[in-house]
C-alpha cells in the first residue's frame, strides 16, 4: 500500500532538485486540451501517459497542464509542447503511445515528431 512516507520522500526529492536549478529558465511545458471535446476524444489517458513517462524518467523540468477547447475539436486530443526558447509545437489526435514517443523523441532528445504535428494534417 502507498504510504504518506512515500509522498514525503517525493517532496524531499523535489525540494532538493528545485534548489539545484535556476528558476524556470529551462522549463518544458506540455499543455493538453481537456474540455468536453478533448475528454471525449481520449485526452485523459494521453495526459496519464505523459505524467507516467515523465515521472518514470525523472524529468524534473517538465510541467504538464490542462487547458480548454481551442476550437479544433475534430483534431483532439490536442497537445502543445513548449520547449524553452522555441516555438510551440502542436500535436494532434494523440494517443498514450504517441505521448510516450513525444516525451522520448521531442522532450528528451529534442527531435520533433513531425508526423504527429498539426502541420502534417494537411
Amino acid at each position, binding site marked *: *500500500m*502507498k504510504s*504518506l512516507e*512515500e*509522498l*514525503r520522500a*517525493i*517532496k524531499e*526529492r*523535489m*525540494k532538493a532538485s528545485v534548489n539545484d536549478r535556476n528558476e524556470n529558465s529551462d522549463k518544458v511545458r506540455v499543455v493538453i486540451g*481537456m*474540455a*468536453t471535446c478533448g*475528454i*471525449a476524444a481520449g485526452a*485523459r*489517458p494521453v*495526459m*496519464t501517459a*505523459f*505524467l*507516467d513517462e*515523465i*515521472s518514470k524518467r525523472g*524529468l524534473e523540468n*517538465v*510541467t*504538464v*497542464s*490542462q487547458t480548454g477547447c481551442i476550437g479544433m475539436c475534430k483534431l483532439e486530443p490536442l497537445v502543445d509542447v513548449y520547449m524553452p526558447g522555441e516555438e510551440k509545437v502542436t500535436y494532434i489526435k494523440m494517443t498514450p503511445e504517441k505521448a510516450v514517443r513525444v516525451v522520448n523523441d521531442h522532450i528528451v532528445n529534442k527531435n520533433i515528431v513531425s508526423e504527429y504535428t498539426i502541420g502534417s494534417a494537411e
Partner: protein
Amino acid sequence: MRELSLHILDIVQNSISAKADTITVEISEDLEADELKITVSDNGCGMDEETLARVNGTFATSRTTRKIGMGIALFRAAAELAEGYLTLESEKGKGTVTTAVFKHSSIDRMPLGDISGTMMLISAKAADFDLIYRHVWNGNEFVFSTRDIKEVIEDTPIDSPEVLTYIHDYIHENLNELFGGERDEIS
C-alpha cells in the same frame, strides 16, 4: 464519453470555472437498492434561476450558452439511458450540486472506468481549491482529500508529475481494497 469517470472529469470543470474552493465528488454504490449515484457539489459562484433553467434545457438551448456547452446534456443522456436521471440544484453565490442516478445493473449503464485517473487530473488543477472524493461501496467508504496531500507536500506543487502519479496509485490501491479486489469496470 465511454466512462462515467470521464463525465465526472467534465462536470468538475464546471465547478472549477465557478471558482469553487471545495469540490466534493461522491460516488455511492448500493447493490441491494441497485443504484449508483454520482454527486458533484461545489461552493462556487452558483447560478441564478434563469441560467439554471437554460442549463436544464435540451441540447438546443445549451448551445446558445457557449459557457455551459454539452457536458451536462451528455451526462444526463447517460443517466437516462440507464433508467436514471440527473438533477441540478444551484443557488447564486452558494454553489451547485449535480446529481446523476443510474440503475446499477442496467446493461446500458457505462462502466465507472478509470476513476483514479480522473481524480489525478482533477488534483492536477487543485492548487487553488480542494478536492474531496468519497466512494461508498455497500456501506464501506474510502475518502481522499487533496488537503491531506497538500499537508504532506507543503510548498511542492501538487501538479508535479511524481506527486500526481502517487495520487493515482494511492487511489487505485485504496479502491481495490474497498471493493475487495480488482473490478472489471474500474480500469
